[in-house]
């Protein structure tokens, strides 16, 4: 779809207003994301919840592509839909136990107040975000800009120059997470035996 956009941009040599197809695809993927996540938090079966979360994540990856973040869309599919969800499936396999009552309904009054607060917060958040109001494609993009924005080369250049230290720090975080997960998931008896 983006190459289509590029083609129209090249032909007209102006801005890249979204076509009807792009708008329809946005609503399709938005519906998939919201529906999938709503499905996820209401499922009793954990495997069904994981599957609907995978659908949500794929829809969000498609939205990343619409925001010209191609590299991150690929990373999203590889890391989330691939690695993290497989991890979840494995853990569900280890401790497959259906809940007798999935919703935590104790202290309903407090949760009602919390829900009202959340609704207020979301309404305020959406109203603030709504005031941003830039149309997609209203910005003057040159064709070169549009081709390079969000590409692996652009992201890599920023990641390995300006954000080199956070990048290295996060690699240490991942190393610690690997070691920590191994230590935590080791059988109890062995740990006490030492």
């Amino acid at each position: 779809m983006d190459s289509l956009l590029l083609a129209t941009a090249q032909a007209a040599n102006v801005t890249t207003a979204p076509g009807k197809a792009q708008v329809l695809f946005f609503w399709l993927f938005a519906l998939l994301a919201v529906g999938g996540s709503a499905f996820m938090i209401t499922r009793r079966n954990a495997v069904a919840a994981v599957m609907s979360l995978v659908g949500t994540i794929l829809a969000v990856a498609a939205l990343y592509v619409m925001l010209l973040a191609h590299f991150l869309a690929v990373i999203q599919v590889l890391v989330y839909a691939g690695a993290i969800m497989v991890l979840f499936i494995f853990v569900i396999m280890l401790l497959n136990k259906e809940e007798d009552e999935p919703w935590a309904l104790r202290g309903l009054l407090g949760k009602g107040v919390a829900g009202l607060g959340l609704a207020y917060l979301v309404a305020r958040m959406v109203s603030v975000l709504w005031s941003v109001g830039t149309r997609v494609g209203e910005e003057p993009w040159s064709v070169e800009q549009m081709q390079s924005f969000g590409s692996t080369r652009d992201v890599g250049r920023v990641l390995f120059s300006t954000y080199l230290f956070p990048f290295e720090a996060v690699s240490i975080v991942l190393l610690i997470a690997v070691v920590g997960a191994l230590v935590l998931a080791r059988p109890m008896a062995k740990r006490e035996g030492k």
Partner: protein
Amino acid sequence: MTDLFWDLSISHFLALAAVLFAIGVVGALMRKNALIVLMSVELMLNSANLTLLAFARQHHDVKAHALAMLVIAVAAAEAAIGLAIVVGVFRSTRHANVDRLTTLRH
């Protein structure tokens, strides 16, 4: 109403991210299964990333992409540690119900 539908703006992406975040909050607060609570946290991180990328497109700034990449890495670390903790808790208590884990409350 048709304008709202056809005039796609950055705000559409931002509002969608806010809605996804709210669904994640509801899931994290209301579910008892620790796995589903973790999945809701992942969903919230995802919606934060969507916001970052929407602003990146608005401001022509690829720096937010680097930040989103770091968020994905931290989310992966969080999932690994969180799931290891869930497995450990399940080993010692034979359940993964966050409402019944009240050892630290007393």
